[in-house]
């Protein structure tokens, strides 16, 4: 979010809504209504004075109405833009023209009541709709005592309670008496999988978030007793099943399979009754009940659909199709996130990148015509080489620092330190005018080192670095002393000691600043082409996207023709002809002038770094070298081949894909069939592979429905563990139940057995509702075999990209970087990343294409200045650093007679692992040299500083 806020090419318009969208792709005119914030974003320093003085309390909606704030406020500390705003409905000045207190207290002069609503007309080429999800109606929640009994909370409210910056500072207390609860019940599927409230779909995320919230609560209060009431445990995301198992074992969370119909309050406690699948009635008394509410379509979905002229589906979410999951029904208008259907963070982030890819395809001709590049003056190298002339700026941060620390004393103390030529205090060093004046003073006094004694470098260092760059100084020459977060805030009760500590911090920062060295900011040219490994749905979709964005693509496929697993699919989950989807894609690929397809080819080795890879590709006995800037791994997965279940012994036992193939050839094989048995989780979820294969439940339901359609008098039995027909696929599941398909749950301890007989086969399994074994003579047994990882191990060694314990490629960050791997310039999509549906694969492929196109479009890769540097004279070539580097960014190379370590600066992330392990201290980190850090440590004692 901070990144979006800082990008010069992203304009953030808050408090705004779309009023009309005219024109066509490439030439849209968006009319936007913007309501006033009444606080000028550029001037506001987020000091909080206005909130403090405002007499008008308002309910804090960000904290789910559990707390109170004032009319001028910021939702949370990290909000972007980092500026307060005034709640126009509550403000006395806005409504009654009285008060005006905040405007008088604002020392930054940011409060501006003259602001009027604005009508903006924006010329844009593409539109991405990402309005998120809406809230389930209170009416639905009332059934469960919400609003009537104070200790019935929604999961969103509970989330705020567990949050350290929430209304209770992370303490879980009952709203009724502020006492910690001992027993908590989570009720799942509130407002989802519930036709009575019109939400027939599954919200996909609640099972996992309930387990997360329960784990967080248990971590905070280990004595809590937590029960979660499920229908099906739908933790089908990557690694989710494992996390759930861990939570159940580690925290002893009680998982009960029952749907609680209502909540009753008895003497301030909450009484629940439920029935378990064995027919037993149970009751329990709880101190708190958390309703795991689902994700609704946004409240203004209909307005959006009218304004943007797009269609909605029958649940008021955005209508999309399997083969283009990010496109709305209007060209050039794209969708991402929960508006497309309920989904979790990794998928939303993936979709967002995917939507960006499509926008980039549309606008590739216009690339770089509207972008802003920030330019900086030449560096004043001579000044940087002079003796350190240090300037110290001590920030008041309003009252944040000055309220505790004696800022003036700290400032004067700084003047006594060696090397300091200028020492000043500023009210808000981060405000626009203060930055300007700091820049002027640096110039005036010919400063070449700057110490900002204020807040955290994590949030503010880039700001001051930019200030230095703007006047021709190297950004590495600024050092920050955090006297706010680490001093004034934590020692608010001891102002004198805090002032002393602030002096210590400033002294240490000055000591380090003296030894700061300018760092190079090298850029590397990028070969403007991509290598895509794998010619399945994901590989083809990403290759097409990159090619449409105007770059060359080499598509490497190991088999004779394109298609991958898609070749074996007969129809998609929404009933489209899968082979037509495939044919269309292959046709586009073959016709595209930017794509070169290499079939029967394999990646042998790869060298280089982001922007400049060289790969060796073997093809029909020959090897070729390919130069490319980025690479996408889309090598796919494979259908798991079952062991047991008489698979291979009897022609009547098939996998789901084999059934589809048969079905596509005609229905004659069903002529004498009476009973069809499907068995879920064959190989998945702990049988042979530990992961959930995510799509087999939906696939089974889809095929069962198809069988029913072909032969309605067929008896179909589906043995399952949890039906994971998430999202809108729940509709298919419900339809299957309505059509009389039998769904019977089994536990891993009692798996169904397939028994071969003299004539035919039968399935023996335990039916938990009858409480007895069933024997079904089966005309056909269909195994839902799930997805096994492809030959990832070998590739993982070649690319140096790590795998998960399940054998799929590991992404760099599950939520923030879901399509990137740890190695820079290498991206990931499709089944190589983990089991997923065709729709999800395509969205992810687009996302990988978007990410891969970033270095290609920029043409240059900037290298982070904080990289490791090897002193080759001191290096003994032991190779410890090479073996430890997680980014493949340091390696031994021949230098003269011996091998010496060398950093590949373009790949280095500056983590410092190599430097900390080097036995001869030959490696140092830019900006954090051993000398500078030692000087900083020595300066902790005032004497140590003088000795220097």
């Amino acid at each position: 979010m901070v990144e979006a806020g800082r990008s010069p090419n992203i304009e953030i318009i808050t408090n705004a809504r779309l009023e009309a969208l005219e024109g066509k792709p490439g030439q849209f005119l968006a009319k936007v209504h913007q309501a006033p914030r009444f606080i000028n974003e550029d001037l506001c320093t987020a000091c909080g004075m206005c909130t403090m003085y405002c007499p008008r309390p308002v309910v804090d909606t960000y904290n789910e109405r559990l707390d109170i704030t004032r009319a001028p406020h910021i939702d949370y500390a990290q909000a972007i833009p980092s500026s307060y705003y005034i709640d126009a409905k509550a403000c006395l000045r806005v409504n009654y023209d009285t008060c005006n207190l905040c405007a008088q207290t604002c020392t930054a002069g940011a409060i501006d009541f003259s602001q009027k609503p604005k009508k903006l007309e924006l010329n844009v080429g593409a539109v991405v709709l990402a309005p998120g999800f809406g809230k389930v109606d209170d009416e639905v929640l009332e059934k469960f005592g919400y609003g009537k009994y104070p200790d019935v909370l929604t999961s969103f409210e509970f989330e705020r309670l567990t949050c350290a910056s929430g209304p209770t500072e992370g303490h879980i207390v009952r709203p009724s008496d502020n006492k910690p609860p001992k027993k908590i019940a989570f009720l799942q599927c509130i407002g989802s999988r519930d036709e009575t409230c019109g939400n027939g779909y599954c919200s996909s995320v609640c099972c996992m978030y309930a387990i997360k919230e329960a784990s967080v609560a248990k971590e905070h209060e280990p004595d809590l007793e937590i029960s979660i009431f499920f229908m099906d445990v739908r933790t089908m995301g990557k690694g989710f099943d494992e996390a759930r198992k861990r939570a159940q074992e580690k925290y002893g969370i009680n998982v009960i399979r029952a749907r609680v119909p209502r909540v009753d309050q008895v003497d301030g406690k909450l009484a629940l009754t439920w029935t378990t699948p064995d027919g037993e009635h149970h009751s329990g008394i709880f101190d708190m009940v958390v309703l795991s509410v689902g994700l609704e379509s946004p409240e203004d979905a209909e307005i959006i659909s009218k304004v943007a002229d797009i269609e909605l589906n029958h649940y008021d979410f955005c209508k999309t199709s399997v083969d283009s999951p990010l496109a709305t029904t209007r060209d050039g208008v794209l969708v991402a996130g929960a508006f497309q259907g309920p989904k979790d963070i990794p998928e939303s982030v993936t979709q967002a990148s995917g939507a960006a890819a499509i926008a980039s395809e549309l606008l590739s001709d216009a690339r770089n015509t509207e972008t802003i590049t920030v330019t900086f003056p030449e560096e004043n190298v001579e000044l940087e080489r002079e003796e350190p002339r240090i300037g110290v700026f001590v920030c008041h941060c309003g009252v944040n620092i000055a309220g505790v620390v004696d800022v003036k004393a700290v400032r004067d103390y700084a003047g006594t330190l060696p090397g300091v030529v200028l020492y000043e205090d500023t009210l808000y060093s981060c405000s626009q005018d203060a930055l300007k004046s700091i820049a002027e003073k640096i110039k005036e006094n010919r400063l070449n080192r700057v110490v900002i004694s204020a807040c955290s470098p994590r949030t503010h260092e880039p700001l001051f670095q930019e200030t230095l760059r703007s006047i021709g100084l190297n950004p590495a020459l600024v050092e920050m002393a955090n006297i706010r977060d680490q001093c004034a805030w934590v020692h608010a009760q001891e102002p004198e000691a805090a002032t002393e500590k602030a002096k210590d911090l400033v002294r240490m920062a000055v000591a380090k600043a003296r030894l700061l060295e300018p760092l190079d900011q090298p850029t590397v040219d990028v070969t403007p082409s991509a290598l895509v490994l794998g010619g399945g749905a994901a590989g083809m979709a990403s290759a097409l996207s990159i090619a449409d964005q105007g770059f060359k693509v080499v598509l490497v496929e190991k088999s004779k023709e394109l298609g991958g697993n898609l070749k074996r699919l007969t129809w998609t989950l929404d009933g489209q002809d899968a082979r037509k989807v495939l044919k269309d894609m292959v046709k586009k690929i073959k016709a595209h002038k930017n794509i070169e397809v290499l079939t029967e080819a394999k990646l042998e080795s790869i060298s280089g770094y982001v922007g400049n890879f060289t790969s060796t590709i073997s093809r029909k006995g020959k090897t070729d070298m390919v130069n490319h800037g980025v690479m996408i791994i889309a090598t796919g997965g494979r259908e798991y081949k079952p062991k047991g279940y008489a698979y291979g012994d009897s022609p009547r036992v098939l996998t789901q894909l084999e059934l589809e193939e048969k079905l596509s050839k005609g229905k004659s094989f069903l002529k004498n069939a009476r009973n069809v048995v499907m068995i879920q989780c064959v190989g998945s979820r702990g049988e042979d592979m530990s992961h959930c294969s995510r799509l087999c439940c939906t696939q089974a339901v889809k095929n069962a429905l198809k069988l029913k359609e072909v032969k309605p008098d067929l008896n179909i039995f589906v043995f399952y563990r949890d039906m994971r027909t998430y999202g809108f696929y729940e509709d298919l599941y419900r339809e299957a139940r309505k059509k009389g398909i039998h769904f019977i749950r089994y536990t891993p301890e009692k798996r169904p057995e397939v028994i071969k007989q003299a004539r035919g086969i039968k399935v023996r399994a335990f039916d938990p509702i009858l409480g007895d074994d069933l024997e079904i003579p089966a005309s056909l047994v269909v195994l839902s075999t799930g997805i096994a990882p492809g030959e990832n191990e070998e590739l993982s060694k070649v690319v140096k990209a790590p795998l998960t314990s399940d054998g799929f490629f590991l992404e760099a960050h599950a939520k923030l970087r879901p399509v990137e791997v740890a190695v820079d310039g290498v991206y990931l999509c499709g089944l190589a990343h983990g089991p997923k549906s065709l729709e999800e694969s395509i969205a992810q492929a687009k996302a990988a294409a978007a990410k891969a196109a970033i270095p290609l479009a920029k043409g240059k890769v900037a290298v982070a200045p904080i990289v490791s540097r090897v002193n080759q004279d001191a290096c003994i070539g032991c190779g410890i650093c090479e073996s430890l580097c997680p980014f493949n960014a340091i390696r031994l190379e021949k230098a003269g007679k011996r091998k010496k370590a060398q950093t590949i600066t373009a790949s280095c992330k500056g983590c410092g692992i190599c430097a900390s392990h080097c036995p001869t201290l030959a490696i140092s980190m830019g900006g954090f040299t051993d000398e500078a850090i030692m000087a900083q440590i020595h300066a902790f004692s005032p004497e140590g500083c003088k000795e220097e």
Partner: protein
Amino acid sequence: MSKIKGFCCNYTMSVDVDALKEGGLVPEGLEIDRLACTGRLEVPEILDAFTNGADAVFVVGCQMDKCHNLSGSYRASKRVRYAKKILKELDMDPELLEMFFADRGHSEPIVEAARLMASKTQGNSQDRDQ
């Protein structure tokens, strides 16, 4: 520990009495008979409860105008009134038998009834002294 006997209809009582005891919400000596309808309750059954050692007895039916079986709780209340008369004739405190009404599925009135009856058995000796 005094023994309390309660007769509840199927629609008023939803929470298991053991769960209520576990939560410490009702007296330990409480025993509840869940009937299909309190209208089914006969006077001898009420008196039998006393014979079998109950210190106090209560009946909980639906709200009079919302009875699932239309007049079930009305019948029950009539019989409770009659049983009270008999208790008086037997020289027992008629206050030890009460009729209560509860909304469907609400357990709170039942818990309150049980507590009230328990306090009556404990307070009885004191009341007489005063």
